[in-house]
């Protein structure tokens, strides 16, 4: 395939004012989505994780907290699909319940980051003077605090809990959204149709709503999916360190932590939560990649 060749699915202009990128994503998106193996695998995993979290709200094979000392550390069997842990709790049920924690932390922290980061990024793009500079400098400060460090500081001040984890991850991702939003919004704001809209007398807020936000939305959603997967990684690490979900509540991180004492006798106790985490993170990052590829018309080979 020639390097300079135009993409096969060059979008036709629709004639109206709508930016065409969105048109492509809507029109041919689903078929391309199904033909993109990583996007497909990603969405299957995402659906699985969400389903297991929802199902675990109402049903798990055993209660994730039910202790049964007589069956402690029993390996996989028909009664306990993935075996039991050191207190005889059913590993499969605990894995299912843990997906709730992962989704809870992931969704809330990404929401915090977007709720602050996107408006701040739009503001920095629109007001390039002093206001924009202030926003960027504030983002710089937060940039010095990766999720883990932020979580440690918050835990030292307020005591460790799930909320400090959510807050810490959310805050640490704010600068990412500020930057992504700002740089993408700048491209749109410098375009000729925005110039035309300005000449026509549209207010900045209306331009944001009609032109900027629809155009940058796919990039933002892709970024959200990616950061969600990073949030799950961070949450696991924090729970492992004892800075998040408190035992006996189940989470993949706390499961890993307690499995540490049985690495020799029962390595499967470590393997199960590991597999769950890797699958979940992989799923959401593939999902995010799939969305970015959808958007990137030129990247289509």
């Amino acid at each position, binding site marked *: 395939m020639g390097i300079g060749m135009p993409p096969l699915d060059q979008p036709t202009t629709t004639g109206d004012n709508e930016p065409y990128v969105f048109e492509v994503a809507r029109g041919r998106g689903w078929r391309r989505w199904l033909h993109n193996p990583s996007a497909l695998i990603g969405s299957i995993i995402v659906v699985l994780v969400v389903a297991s979290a929802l199902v675990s709200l109402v049903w798990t094979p055993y209660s994730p907290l039910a202790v049964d000392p007589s069956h402690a550390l029993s390996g996989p069997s028909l009664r306990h699909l993935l075996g039991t842990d050191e207190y005889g709790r059913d590993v499969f049920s605990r894995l299912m319940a843990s997906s709730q924690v992962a989704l809870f932390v992931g969704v809330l922290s990404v929401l915090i980051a977007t709720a602050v980061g996107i408006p701040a990024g739009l503001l920095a793009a629109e007001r390039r003077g002093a206001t924009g500079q202030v926003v960027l400098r*504030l983002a710089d400060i937060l940039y010095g605090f990766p999720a883990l460090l932020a979580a440690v500081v918050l835990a030292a001040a307020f005591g460790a809990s799930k909320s400090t984890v959510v807050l810490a991850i959310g805050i640490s991702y704010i600068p990412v959204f500020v930057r992504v939003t700002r740089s993408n919004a700048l491209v749109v704001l410098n375009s000729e149709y925005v110039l035309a809209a300005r000449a026509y007398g549209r207010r900045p807020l209306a331009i944001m709503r009609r032109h900027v936000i629809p155009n940058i939305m796919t990039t933002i959603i892709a970024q959200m999916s990616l950061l969600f997967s990073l949030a799950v990684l961070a949450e696991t690490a924090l729970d492992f360190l004892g800075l998040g979900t408190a035992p006996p509540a189940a989470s993949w991180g706390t499961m890993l932590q307690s499995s540490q004492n049985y690495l020799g006798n029962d*390595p499967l106790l470590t393997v199960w939560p590991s597999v769950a985490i890797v699958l979940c993170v992989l799923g959401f*990052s593939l999902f995010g990649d799939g969305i970015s590829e959808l958007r990137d018309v030129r990247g289509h080979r």
Partner: protein
Amino acid sequence: MDAAVRLGRALMPLLRRVGTIAVALWGASVLVFVVLNVLPGSPAQVILGTQATPQAVRQLTIQLGLNKPLLRQYLDWVGGLLHGSLGVSYISHLSIGAQIAQALSVTGPLVLFALIIGLVIGLPLGFLGALRNGRVSGSLIGSLSQIGMAVPTVVAGLLLVIILTVKLHVFPTSGFPGWSDPLQALRALVLPAFSLGLVEGAILSRYVRASVLEQLRSDYLRTARSKGLRVGQALRRHGIRNAAIPLVTVVGLELASLIVGAIVVENVFALPGLGLLLLDSVNNRDLITVQDIAMLVASAVLVINLVVDLSYRLLDPRLKGLS
């Protein structure tokens, strides 16, 4: 006169960047101080326990300087940091500076070791992935690195322990013998460094691949190929330098994430580094130590960012004129 003006103009972006970093560092110090000091409740009470007499609590509060106004405490703290004096731990009464220096003698080599492992894995894998793009082996490398990125360092560490320590007895599980026996010390760092390095290598390889692919598709490389150079030759002569520019950024970001990752890995392997010190301080409510280490890590991340940004300009002359 003319030369001075030109020099000044060339240095302007540099000075501006250093200025913004100084502002960010100041902001970070305010943030850390406020979060750790606004809460009501007396650290002295926490340290002495609920049984302590009010007199003892008051005495310790004065001794720790916690009776002074907050602004005064903040200025004392930052002034101390600027003079290289980090204060004394509330709990152990040891110099925090000395404790951090001791911890860095573990964390520093660990991070460096992990960075080398990450580079040794990521660079060739990324190059190979780009050269084999579109073939089965290329997709295989792509999938491998995608999965590697999804592995938390905790998981990498625990799985390495299961395989190499528990099953094969190759490496010690945890702890650190100290640098008096360098060989044993390095041996204790192998597994932790690999836990960090494998994952970072996977991430790095994706960036390398993307960067090399971009060069392979560039016009000048096509010209080089059309004059008869083979892909490898053309890349060596023309591509690598250009591909290296974005990689500097990535390696810088890696370094920052390795420093943070070390906090986790040190706790998996019970290595007496900065991460273990930080977590111990959190658990003992030794807030002044937490404050110092948090500031240290945040500064490291911000300064690494600055260095990356500046080296970027240095490597790519096209960016010189831009601010």
